[in-house]
């Protein structure tokens, strides 16, 4: 990994943390449970890495590890977004 790339990635990481703090501090406590399940689903983005590994030509072991990772990550993503939707649909105003 060239130095420039590394620095770029670190910049993205640091800036995204700031964006995260800005956005998330504004979320009201009443929605904290959906926030956890929803952000949890977003952390399932690792599915992208899992798919890359599982569909690669990196050798049998890597592909197997990748397929297991895809299963976990997909469960996380699909279940996370669905259950968040289910919860949010219940919130109504009087």
């Amino acid at each position: 990994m060239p130095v420039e790339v590394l620095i770029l990635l670190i910049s993205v990481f640091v800036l995204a943390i700031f964006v995260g703090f800005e956005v998330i501090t504004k979320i009201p406590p009443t929605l904290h449970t959906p926030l956890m399940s929803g952000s949890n689903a977003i952390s399932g983005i690792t599915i992208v890495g899992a798919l890359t590994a599982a569909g690669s030509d990196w050798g049998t072991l890597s592909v197997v590890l990748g397929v297991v990772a895809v299963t976990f990550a997909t469960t996380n993503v699909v279940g996370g977004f669905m259950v968040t939707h289910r919860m949010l649909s219940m919130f109504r105003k009087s």
Partner: protein
Amino acid sequence: MSESIIRIAYLVAAVLFIFGLKGLTHPKTAVRGNLMGATGMLIAVVAVLVSREIVSYGQLAIGLGAGVVLGSLLAVKIQMTAMPQLVAVFNGFGGIASALVAAASYESIRGGTPFVEVLAADPSDTLAATTSVSVAAAGLVGAVTFTGSLVAFSKLQELIKGKPRWVPSGRVVNGALLAAAVALAVIMVVNPSTTVFWAMIAVAAALGLSLVLPIGGADMPVVIALLNSYSGLAAAAAGFVLQNTALIISGSLVGSSGLILTMIMCKAMNRSLANVLFGGVGGGAKVEGPSADEVYAGKIKSTSSEEVGMMLESASRVVIVPGYGMAVAQAQHAVRDLMNLLQERGTEVEFAIHPVAGRMPGHMNVLLAESDVPYDHLKEMEVANPTFPQTDVAIVIGANDVVNPDAREVPDSPIAGMPIIEVDKARTVVVIKRSLSPGFAGVPNPLFAADNTMMLFGHGKEAILDIVGALKED
């Protein structure tokens, strides 16, 4: 498809995640926000599927299919009371997936040469080390998240006794395991080796167990929030391994989200994170102070549902303070009926919710929303507290430590300084409880003995239904 288009697709996905989280700032926009997040995820997945990095698809279908079935089954079947367990499991799954991605990358054979040899054989490229560091970080954090989350799940599901199993050497064990994991990580960075990597994973897995096992049930909201943060950081670390900005951005968003929630929870319990993680209230510390007998003797006034019904009849403002006990008694629907009945009679009814009521942040709100209590009736502690002097009746159901005035008044109480819901300032307080048993903090609650407090002993749901019945009778 060209690499640039795929990178742009990742950027679009990241932007959708940010807008999605922004949508969660209000219940009205939250559903749309969540759908935006899901759309972002779909875009990212499609982008990687059409990229040149994928050379064969057959095995992908297995993993994707299994995940879709399992994920949707869990999401549809889960009871709202069990939401903390589900989030714990999902945190763990995210963590292990990131660790496995790092492992797959580290174990890979690229162009006939094992990746570790590529890393080792290139002393000129000192930044081969950064790849190793990322692999180690994703593996370590991912494995800790996985086993830690499994323990948290087992505790919430009550498969493991919820109370702390205080091992005197807990801190020493944790420190030793962490040092060993870091040492192995350093070794694999200096001298790339898959054996060392797996040894580190094993140590990290053990660390996850030893970190969460001693933590009590009352502290689970903090632990889940922290593990939520870890699952994001593991994804971000995996992003560094694969040089993928989508993973880095999303991972850091979740990392900061979990951290903010962790800090909110700690503040609501007036404790430091270190104190939660390494013992404290309920963690075996001897509780000093007056015994329950001294606090309660001769001062407890017991009441009946008929009497409570009569008080509510003449009340113009009622505040209900729910705790996890309400969920255990499945009383939330009965509480909703009581609210509706009182509102029909022209009584103002609100709910005051402590940040750590329930087993995870916001848990009470979800349970009440499920019971059709409108969200604008759910008030945060800071908003509700100033209204208690104008409140005729405060009904506490299934909550204890979060309404204990000692937190405010007794400086050497184990819960001193913890922000509480100030029900004791209401004209009359009705506490619905099975007995005078203490809450998680293990201390007696002088609220129960206060002049303006009436105890309604009984099962939460039945007690509320009896009150509803008494109100309806006349």
